[in-house]
């Protein structure tokens, strides 16, 4: 359905269409240069860099604790896993043992952030395809999560909550009960999203069988996260390389079948259910103890060496490569950003598709340009 021969009968002139960088459906400042033949795309060139801030270079002039504030600005829709990835890498360099309570709190926050991020995807993807109502529903719930974060750490998007050695603040009983309230409210809502959007015939017609990614292509292009799992490849960092005590929690990794836009969409919808399970289990079994490891100074100077840590962020496998020369700031910070890698497959996927499907495919990849450009 998605791949159509470019008008086998006649020869058409090539038409260049510029999508973005101010297009509302590109979810940020992404520009895609499309070459069309009739309605069929013959060439697609994603153009990035409009939001480049050079954070990996900026990190070289900042202390390790200050770098955490920079990580918030990569994937600003789900900043907790960003914080966590950098802290894990720095803690590897320092050789710090994290108290179990802090580890549990990190898991809770990352999973709540995954729900918030997938809710944003769910709402905006509906808008991309002409369904406005799910957006309002999804944002109502997302707002509750952001309120929880505001209560806990004071920020709604750029948290700076997970710190090297632990977390910024402990949760209060009031926070825990509010989170329980939210989860109780949220669980029945997921069926409503299915009624509203997931199994809506118009939505199905726009997404099922559109933007197919085969298993092989997904692995070849280095996709990760729900984009990879939508194609049926079972890879989740939380399972394959557990960090922060994820191996202690019981959850499943939802997989798609066909690798179409709908599979990627529904993978995220199912992942939210698993995240709810993890948050509930983590809050129920929250151990007592410190929230910050002992022996982490205000200015840390890790011994010379290098460390790599990766986490399953909301958009995929977020990796941090950190090199220390013994000084107070990193010698080199490299980010393997999932959005950046996931975006690359667009140039292959869009070729042969109709121009009307571009927004559906682009939205299903779920990129955040802050992370793509860094």
């Amino acid at each position, binding site marked *: 359905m998605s791949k159509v021969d470019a008008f086998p009968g006649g020869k058409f002139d090539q038409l260049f269409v510029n999508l973005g960088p101010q297009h509302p459906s590109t979810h940020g400042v992404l520009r895609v240069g499309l070459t069309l033949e009739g309605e069929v795309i013959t060439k697609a060139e994603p153009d990035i860099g409009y939001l480049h801030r050079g954070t990996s270079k900026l990190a070289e002039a*900042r*202390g390790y*604790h*200050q*770098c*955490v*504030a*920079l990580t*918030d*600005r990569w994937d600003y829709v789900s900043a907790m896993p960003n914080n966590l990835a950098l802290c894990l890498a720095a803690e590897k360099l320092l050789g710090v043992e994290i108290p179990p309570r802090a580890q549990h709190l990190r898991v809770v926050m990352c999973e709540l952030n995954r729900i918030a991020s997938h809710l944003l995807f769910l709402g905006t993807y509906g808008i991309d395809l002409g369904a406005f*109502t799910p957006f309002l*529903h999804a944002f*109502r719930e997302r*707002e509750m999560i952001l*309120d929880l974060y*505001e*209560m*806990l*750490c*004071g*920020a709604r998007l*750029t948290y*700076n909550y997970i710190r090297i050695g632990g977390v*910024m*603040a402990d949760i209060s009983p009031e926070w825990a009960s509010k989170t329980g309230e939210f989860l109780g409210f949220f669980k029945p809502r997921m069926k*409503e999203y299915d*009624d*509203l*959007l997931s*199994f*809506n*015939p118009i939505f199905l017609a726009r997404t099922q069988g559109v933007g197919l990614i085969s298993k092989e292509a997904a692995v070849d292009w280095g996709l990760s996260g729900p984009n990879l799992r939508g194609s049926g490849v079972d890879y989740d960092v939380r399972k394959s390389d557990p960090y922060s005590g994820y191996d202690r929690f019981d959850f499943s990794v939802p997989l798609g079948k066909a690798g179409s836009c709908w599979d990627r969409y529904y993978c995220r919808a199912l992942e939210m259910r698993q995240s709810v399970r993890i948050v509930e289990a983590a809050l129920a079994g929250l151990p007592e103890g410190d929230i910050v490891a002992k022996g982490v100074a*205000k200015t840390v100077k890790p011994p010379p060496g290098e460390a790599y840590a990766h986490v399953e962020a909301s958009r995929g496998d977020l990796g941090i490569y950190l090199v220390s020369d013994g000084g107070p700031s990193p010698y080199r910070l490299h980010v393997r950003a999932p959005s950046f890698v996931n975006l690359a497959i667009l140039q292959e996927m869009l070729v042969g598709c109709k121009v009307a499907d571009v927004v559906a495919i682009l939205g299903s990849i779920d990129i955040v340009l802050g992370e793509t450009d860094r």
Partner: protein
Amino acid sequence: MTGYFHRIARDSWAVCKGMWVTLRTLVKPSITVQYPTEKLTPEPMFRGVLLYDVERCTACGLCAKACPSNCISLQNQVNEAGKRAPKAAWYAIDLGRCSWCRLCEESCPFKPKVVWHSIDYELVFWSRDEMVRCWKPGTPLAGWVHDPKKDAFRDPSGQVVIQEVPARHDEKGPKHD
């Protein structure tokens, strides 16, 4: 032919299910806040506009060192002997650079903190100059513009909304520690 009608029935049912969700939500109270007339109070932990208490500050400079965006600048007072006194001559925060991370507040050795995030989230400027807020001992007002190049203070002739700085932590102070 049966397949055709079956599809019509199935798709209509799916649309009805979606509309039923909408209808159920319709009778629930609205959660929208009509912002300018109706304002929410942020949580006490909220990281809003930075405030500073010039009377208690010893100008140790830990906050300026902790800041990832280098937005805090300060100058010690000089006593009669020509040595640095533990008192700030002036203290400026470039709110245009601030990344609202609370590292300055955490690094402050005083309790209650001398520099802290208030819960004020309404921050509007007419120009980039006004983003720099400066505090000086003796003046209870913040909002004087500090020009770092000339090391001088300019009054932007009423352009800045001069706001009174709470001298102590009242209801705007942080609740933790």
